[in-house]
């Protein structure tokens, strides 16, 4: 080790403790920053509306006698089955609310770092690119899982509580796995999707528009192509449609459109792969100015 001649400097003789999760401070800060925004808290609270609605549905299904006066001769208004859960997870409003929450809470995850040239600050610490991306992805995972896995498991638990027996669980023992599996798929997909778009610009407002715009445009494009070619395979252009196909498959339901689910999984995987390639190029500690 070369001698350092400056007065007052002394080499630190301590031992650097390797942290198991070096990305955890990034995740924690990302979540805290999201909750500092007032409007985000409102949007986040609003994103639980579908789960509350479905929870009420569960309650009604178990207390149909009390609601009989509102029924018109049918024995069961709401049939609770895996289809009920598939409907919750794949309905347009939940997916849209997830996009809304992520756009406002996570849109600036990489964009803000690019704007303030913070990547150099991150990578001058003992932090790898992988840790940085895991940290950022975990922020997204936090929000998505809270809106999907958590209400999903809570709905199952409340179903068992309202029913007063484990019959439902014994009938569909794979249901919790479907809930967790689809939640994981949404988490991974939206993680890559949001980080990809967040990395393409330093302007958080532009990124927000991109996150919405791409999501909505993909559906508009599907509608247009469907109108022209009249083939269900055009759904592969639509992000929400592909997610709905994948969700129906994971819940063992009939697919909404006559396209094998493997195609939808392939499209979602391709978007994730594209995102990984772009992120690998974009996340650098040194900015090259031409």
């Amino acid at each position, binding site marked *: 080790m070369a001698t350092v001649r400056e007065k007052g400097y002394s080499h630190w003789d301590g031992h650097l403790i390797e942290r198991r999760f070096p990305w955890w401070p990034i995740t924690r800060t990302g979540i805290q920053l999201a909750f500092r925004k007032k*409007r985000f808290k409102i949007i986040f609270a609003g994103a639980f509306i579908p789960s509350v609605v479905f929870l009420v549905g569960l309650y009604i299904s178990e207390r149909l006698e009390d609601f009989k006066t509102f029924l018109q001769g049918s024995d069961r208004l709401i049939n609770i089955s895996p289809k009920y859960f598939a409907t919750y997870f794949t309905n347009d409003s939940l997916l849209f609310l997830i996009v809304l929450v992520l756009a406002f809470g996570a849109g600036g995850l990489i964009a803000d770092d690019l704007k303030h040239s913070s990547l150099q600050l991150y990578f001058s610490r003992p932090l790898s690119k992988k840790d940085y991306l895991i940290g950022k992805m975990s922020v997204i995972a936090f929000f998505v899982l809270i809106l999907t896995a958590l209400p999903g498991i809570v709905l199952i638990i409340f179903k068992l509580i309202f029913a007063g027996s484990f019959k439902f669980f014994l009938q569909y023992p794979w249901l919790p796995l479907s809930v967790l599996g689809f939640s994981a798929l949404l988490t991974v997909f939206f993680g890559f999707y949001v980080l990809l778009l967040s990395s393409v610009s330093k302007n*958080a*407002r532009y990124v927000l*528009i991109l996150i919405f715009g791409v999501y909505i*445009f993909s559906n508009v*494009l599907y*509608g*247009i192509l469907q109108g*022209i*070619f009249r083939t269900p395979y055009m759904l592969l252009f639509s992000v929400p449609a592909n997610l709905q196909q994948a969700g129906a498959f994971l819940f063992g339901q009939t697919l909404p459109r006559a396209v094998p689910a493997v195609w939808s999984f392939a499209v979602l995987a391709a978007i994730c792969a594209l995102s990984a390639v772009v992120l690998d190029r974009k996340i650098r500690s040194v900015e090259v100015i031409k």
Partner: protein
Amino acid sequence: MTAAQAARQVFGFFGFLGRRTGKTRVFAILGLIPVVLAVVVRVFLHGRAGLMADVSTEILMVFFLQFYIVILALFYGTSITAEEVENRTLSYLLTRPIPKPAIILGKFAAYTALMFAMVGLSLALSYFIINAGRLGDPAVYGALLRYLGVLGLGILAYTAFFAFLGTILKRAIIIGLVFGFGWENVIQYFPGSTQRFSIVHYLKSLLPYHPANVGGGRGVALLLFRLEPTKPVVAVIMLAVITAGLLALACWFFRIKEYLYEE
């Protein structure tokens, strides 16, 4: 310098800046999508002229009216004020001898010109590709001019609305998104006069209407689904009033409000 002269200088400066930014390139590339679709349609629907005409309305107007001009106007309209505050460049403008309304009007003019260039080029290219077999027919050009006019009025009205939002709200994007992709889509299904509380109602009132059973017009009817269309003259006047009124409000608010940078 008068306000008009100042607005002209602002127009020149921000027209130049707007052409330069990467985001304009991205939005211009987005405008190539209908051109690609037009080529695809031409290849696949070659020979079916009736279907082609309907499809042109379907493709172009769904894409342009329900998505492209809304997203362009949302970005550029809110940028009129928001980008100056976010990027902290507002100081450079406020410390020049130009009236504040000139900044709004000049940027509005620059960005709408830019948007119209992108939309116009995209529409014209895709329209000519789809109607390549009918280029000798003057009606084709008449229809194109009509569509360009509708989209031009749409750009002006939407940009004025989002510019107004941008001057009064710190985070205008969320309201803009809810309005542009929520309200504008949902309101058309409301009965009576309710749909007159939207910009898209007046734009659709200016479009030619194809009955649902002509060619492949099922999608067309859905796109142009409206209960009580407003007379075209009234629709143009309303769009002009909306544009002028919201711009005037934006100028007024920009003049009296102070904008603080976030620390």
